[in-house]
């Protein structure tokens, strides 16, 4: 069995989320609160946390958190490279690597984002990637870059545009029923969605994720240690991060067959091979959707459907809990739960497997966390509330 399989676990979670620009605290303060909440959730002394992992150019270097947390000794401090959300799931694998190699015992995975402290996320992501080729073409935002790929997927690969709408509706359906979601209590108005303003064709406003202030933190420890803590362990069963030849930061010169994908083909291959699981074993999916089309492409990459049958699978009724066969984004996802660079999708993965989701999937045992799609480096992880 692969060394990552069921050997580490999420023992505690904490999240603080606000409307963009509305955080009552600066970024580091919100993050400290989320970390303390994750430790309290697990019944774990925060001073004993000895490792930290983040992704997506998070600006909170762990050593600076030590005074607020009372950290005794920092032993592991690392990030997944990449400016976008491609590393969100890989961060859990990196934390597990620290624990399994004995370099740290209690590792916090986190992402924090407060506009007043670090500016607009979309601008920060692009600052990571921008060059003169893009600036001269007027391609300066994630929405535009993803829009170009989406047009190719729709027009050249024949994916019907209706599936994107179904995915958006499913996220908003769940978000409307999740008290922790920014869209809580408000049903999506289909006319409003369909007639919302163009951003970059084929994306209208509702095809794009929002940005929120906030932070989320996850306490990871060995599976053995997690079993002695307050909450039921949510085991990491597998995690893969990376990119294959012909994919990456290539000025749109990716391999033609890979171009319209979300970059997850090698990730899914490894994830399923190393866990012995398949798409049929996945009870629920938390899907990072920066933009609607990239969410669809991610589902295709992860083997839930193909270009040919995507319309049979990515249907609103099939995507919603508790009745759909492929419940997706049961917390509301980036569209409707909120967007702290995708960390909320991981939060919902744990909530769902604990049986604490606002949109529970009966008997859910295995959850796929599909990380930020379309990023040059992408990652995904599989979590379970038992070790199958």
């Amino acid at each position, binding site marked *: 069995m692969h060394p990552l399989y069921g050997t580490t676990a999420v023992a505690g979670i904490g999240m603080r989320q606000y409307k963009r620009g509305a955080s009552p605290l600066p970024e580091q303060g919100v993050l400290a609160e989320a970390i303390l909440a994750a430790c309290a959730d697990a019944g774990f002394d925060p001073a004993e946390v000895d490792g930290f992992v983040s992704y997506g150019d998070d600006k909170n270097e762990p050593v600076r958190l030590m005074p607020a947390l009372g950290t005794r000794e920092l032993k592991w401090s690392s990030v997944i490279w990449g400016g976008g959300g491609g590393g969100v799931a890989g961060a859990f694998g990196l934390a597990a690597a620290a624990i399994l190699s004995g370099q740290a015992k209690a590792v916090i995975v986190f992402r924090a984002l407060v506009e007043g402290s670090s500016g607009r996320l979309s601008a920060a992501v692009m600052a990571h990637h921008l060059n003169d080729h893009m600036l001269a073409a007027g391609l300066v935002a994630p929405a535009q870059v993803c829009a170009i790929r989406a*047009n190719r997927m729709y027009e050249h690969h024949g994916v019907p545009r209706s599936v994107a709408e179904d995915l958006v509706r499913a996220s908003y359906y769940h978000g409307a029923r999740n008290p922790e979601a920014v869209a809580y209590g408000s049903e999506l108005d289909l006319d409003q969605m369909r007639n919302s303003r163009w951003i970059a064709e084929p994306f209208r406003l509702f095809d794009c994720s929002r940005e929120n202030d906030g932070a989320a933190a996850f306490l990871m420890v060995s599976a053995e240690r997690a079993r002695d803590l307050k909450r039921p362990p949510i085991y990491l069963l597998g995690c893969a991060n990376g990119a294959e030849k012909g994919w990456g930061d290539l000025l749109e010169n990716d391999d033609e067959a890979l171009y319209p994908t979300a970059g997850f083909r090698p990730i899914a291959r490894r994830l399923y091979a190393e866990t012995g699981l398949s798409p049929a074993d996945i009870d629920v999916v938390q899907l990072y959707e920066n933009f609607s089309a990239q969410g669809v492409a991610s589902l295709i990459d992860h083997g839930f459907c193909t270009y040919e049958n995507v319309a049979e699978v990515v249907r609103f009724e099939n995507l919603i809990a508790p009745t759909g066969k492929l419940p997706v984004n049961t917390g509301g996802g980036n569209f409707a739960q909120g967007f702290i660079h995708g960390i909320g999708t991981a939060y919902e993965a744990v909530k769902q497997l604990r049986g604490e989701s606002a949109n529970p999937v009966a008997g859910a045992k295995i959850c796929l966390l599909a990380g930020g799609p379309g990023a040059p480096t992408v990652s995904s992880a599989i979590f379970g509330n038992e070790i199958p």
Partner: protein
Amino acid sequence: MHVNDGADAPYWNGLAEGRLLLPRCGGCGDWLWPAVSRCGACGSETVEWIERAMRGTIFSWTRTWHRFGFTESLDLPFVSVVATVDDCGVRLLGRLDDPQQVDPVIGEAIAGRIGATRVEGRDIPTIIWSRG
């Protein structure tokens, strides 16, 4: 961010002279784009810069309606394309003339001319494509 100090410097210098120059491996003949200092396929460090005609086809496109930062010099909406350059297969980012707002079609033939995009007081050369 400086235009002329990377592996793609000859590309920018070519545009400034009115020519499209693209890099090809002196060892195996593969086109190397984005520009690199070494061919990962054969290991050669000889890069030849070859002139290509500004003709190609549309690989994909988007029409931008939202005013994003850095696009202030462009009238909305504007169309950005990924263009496959003929006789090499290299894909370039560029802009497409869009006077009638007719949706581009993937595979459509396009011809380019050298223009520039003004970004924060700097004119960055680029290829502006037209249909036909």
